[in-house]
């Protein structure tokens, strides 16, 4: 049988292939105990983490922009920006 961490690393890469970054995070976490010293593993894991953080930030920013647009009818667009 294959080592569970090896399986998890493989699944993380497959998740990246499918652009399912959230699933990739979970698989990277499962593989971490075995691969924590592996530079390539760490690079991919941290890049994926950063990407998710950026996406979260963008989701919030999208929300903020919608709120800003709602205030435009009051003629305060310049002030708010």
């Amino acid at each position, binding site marked *: 049988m294959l080592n569970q961490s090896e399986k998890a690393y493989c699944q993380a890469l497959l998740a990246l292939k499918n652009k399912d970054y959230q699933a990739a995070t979970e698989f990277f976490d499962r593989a971490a105990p075995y691969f924590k010293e592996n530079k390539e593993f760490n690079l991919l894991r941290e890049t994926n983490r950063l990407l998710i953080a950026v996406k979260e930030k*963008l989701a919030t920013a999208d929300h903020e922009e919608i709120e800003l647009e709602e205030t435009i009818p009051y003629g305060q667009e310049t002030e708010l920006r």
Partner: protein
Amino acid sequence: MSKYYAFKSLEGLLEVFLDKVVQLKAERLQILEGVNRLDDIARLSGEGGDVTDEIGEWFAAHNQWLNEDVLKVGDAGRIDRILTEIKNGLTVSSGDSAASRKIESEINRWSELAGAGDGRLTLRREPEQKIDTEIDSMVMFDNALEGARDLYHDLQGGKQHVLSVLDDALRRAVLQKNKQALILSAFMIYYLKHNGYLMEPFIKRLKEAERIQKEDLTIA
């Protein structure tokens, strides 16, 4: 550029990077995915499930591996081991049915063709090549010794003690995953141990370096 567009640009950059890495590993990933799937089937079989259909589908999907010569020796060995586990569980789970007999014969065919690594290489070697290989192995060892000596001189620099050189060799074995540095470290440890030095911490570091390099080979 606004903060929003800076994040948007970073998002694109990170996605492209991950995408390129996956593309570079595409062929390897395909193999790992197949081995992973086979391992899942073996687990199911180990739990007493009837895997006749699953294993049949797996063979159908991966038969081309035998013709395309894409499997590394390590992969072939893994597949062989997993297939043996499945074969052992087949009779228990599905009895002596025609389907299970067919699967068993297919497993035997795979084991023969994929081989378990060493056997495959030996079978392909012609008698006269054996002599060449022996000569090659001596030349290769001689080159390795020379390489280790060169590396030792590189690492020596202005250091005052051989232990400092060993420390650097081990560091290079870990950080750069340098196999030559690993071999040099092992040689130095053995030499120093015979000269009365206490080498336990260095032996631990050597084992760690070896583990890291092996890990890399597994994933590569």
